[in-house]
């Protein structure tokens, strides 16, 4: 029997390792392609720069929402005629696009989502405008479906769908969407303790609580409300509601009216929230 040289052994091991790696990669690539968005031609053209481009289109949409008036920036007064002319040419006022004119925002959001399909915020804002500005909840749902295809694991999309279904009175679908959102959240850890993630978690749990209550599933409702209270213990209206539900009494405000109140958000509210955050 001839003994193998160390070089042959090393060569055979390398070949085997390469074969194994090749097999694993062959299995992994189709699997990962199924769960991530195809970035398309923009990714080929701009690479990671497409995120900046997408953000630029998103900001342009914000400019259109404010009817072309940019956000105020701290500046010094130069007392020059250039500044006086500029101030007259581009007045600083707070105005919002409303109704049909809000449709002008959508092309920029469409460009933002096409440039970077992972820009979930752009999808959410587009869906919001389609529903509140144009009163087209079919279009909003279409946009959210497209968002989900590009970002299958993002909890914000089923959350927004849940809000949309509540506003349009499809409560069973809302419950399913919000349950999916909660499930997605459990797979996606929060980045910081006070992040939007936690706020959203409490919101999902509260919505689910009200939806279960409407369906007469008090135990599930109480469980959801208690989970929401575990995140924000100072929410007294939920605390009082849990007590009433546990005692088998009817709360004064119906779950439906509270859901409607909580999900009714206009463009002006969104803008005020944004300014509050800025401040």
């Amino acid at each position, binding site marked *: 029997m001839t003994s193998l040289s160390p070089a042959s052994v090393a060569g055979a091991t390398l070949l085997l390792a390469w074969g194994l790696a090749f097999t694993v990669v062959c299995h992994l690539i189709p699997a990962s392609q199924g769960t991530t968005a195809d970035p398309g031609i923009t990714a080929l053209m701009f690479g990671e720069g497409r995120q900046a481009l997408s953000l630029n289109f998103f900001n*342009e949409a914000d400019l*259109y929402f404010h*009817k*072309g008036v940019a956000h105020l*920036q*701290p*500046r*010094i*007064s*130069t007392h*020059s*005629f*250039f*500044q006086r*002319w*500029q101030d*007259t*040419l*581009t*007045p600083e006022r707070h105005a919002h696009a409303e109704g*049909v004119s809000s*449709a*002008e925002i*959508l*092309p*920029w959001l*469409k*460009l933002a989502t096409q440039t970077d399909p992972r820009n979930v915020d752009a999808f959410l804002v*587009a869906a919001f405008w*389609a529903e509140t500005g*144009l009163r087209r909840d079919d*279009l909003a749902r*279409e*946009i959210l479906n497209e968002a989900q295809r590009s970002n299958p694991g993002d909890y914000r999309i089923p959350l927004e769908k849940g809000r949309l279904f509540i506003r349009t009175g499809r409560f069973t679908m809302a419950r399913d969407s919000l349950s999916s959102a909660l499930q997605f959240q459990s797979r996606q850890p929060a980045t910081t303790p006070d992040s939007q993630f936690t706020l959203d978690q409490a919101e999902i749990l509260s919505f689910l609580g009200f939806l279960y209550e409407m369906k007469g599933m008090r135990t599930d409702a109480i469980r959801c409300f208690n989970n929401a209270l575990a995140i924000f213990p100072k929410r007294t209206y939920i605390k009082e509601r849990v007590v009433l539900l546990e005692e088998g009494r009817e709360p004064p405000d119906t779950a439906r009216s509270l859901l409607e109140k909580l999900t009714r958000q206009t463009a002006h509210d969104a803008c005020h929230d944004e300014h509050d955050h800025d401040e």
Partner: protein
Amino acid sequence: MKRILTLATIVWLEMVRRKELYVLLILLAALLAGLLSVDVFGLSGITGYAKDVGLLGVWLLSWILAVNISVRQLPQEAQRGTLFPLLAMPVSRLTLILGKWLGAWSGVGFALICFYLTLLVGVWLKGGGFDANTLVQAILLHGGALAVVCALGIALSTRLNRDAALVTAYITTGSAFLLMPRIPAMLAGTRGLESVSLFGAYYLLPHFEVFDLRRRLIHDWGRVGWLLIGEILLYAFLMTVVFLTLAWLGYRKRRFSRGDVL
């Protein structure tokens, strides 16, 4: 005056011969056709984005044309050797500069009107339009800005060769357009030498942003007072005079010899 007009006509003839205007018009039409074919979630009657990108296209193309035409006039005459019979006519150097500037500016101005007409047709096909008064004001101010760009291009070409003048003109006008409106905000966080240099740039470089009425046009803010338009056009006139004077100062004593240029 007759000589100035003759020189301007030569610039026009050259522009027609080079077919730059047609190429740029085709580019603009292609851009508009692309914009018109964009499907925005199946919605109709949305024209804001087409106006926005179209106006940006008009500004960019007119800027490219103005810089290219203005910076090549004088170096080209010197390079071809046609400068010598021209100066021997006799045509004074000031007349030469004014004729070249007038030809470049009026040629670019004509192109500008063609660009705006193409844009109007494009926006109209999409079902939109512009406020007529604001559009007239926007074109007037745009024309004023191009007068300054042409004068700057000619001034730079008196002391630099064509390529150097082209690059310098692009950098100067481009950075003036982008930087000037941001300087008051930048000054809010600066002190000392940085602040002084920013102030210097603010008062020395041309302010092209005051000629830009795109936002008023797109968002239908309506026209501005004609007095303000007059003031801004007067500023354009003064800046043009400054740059043409600099051009004349840089050119009047410049020596040419056939050996250098041929």
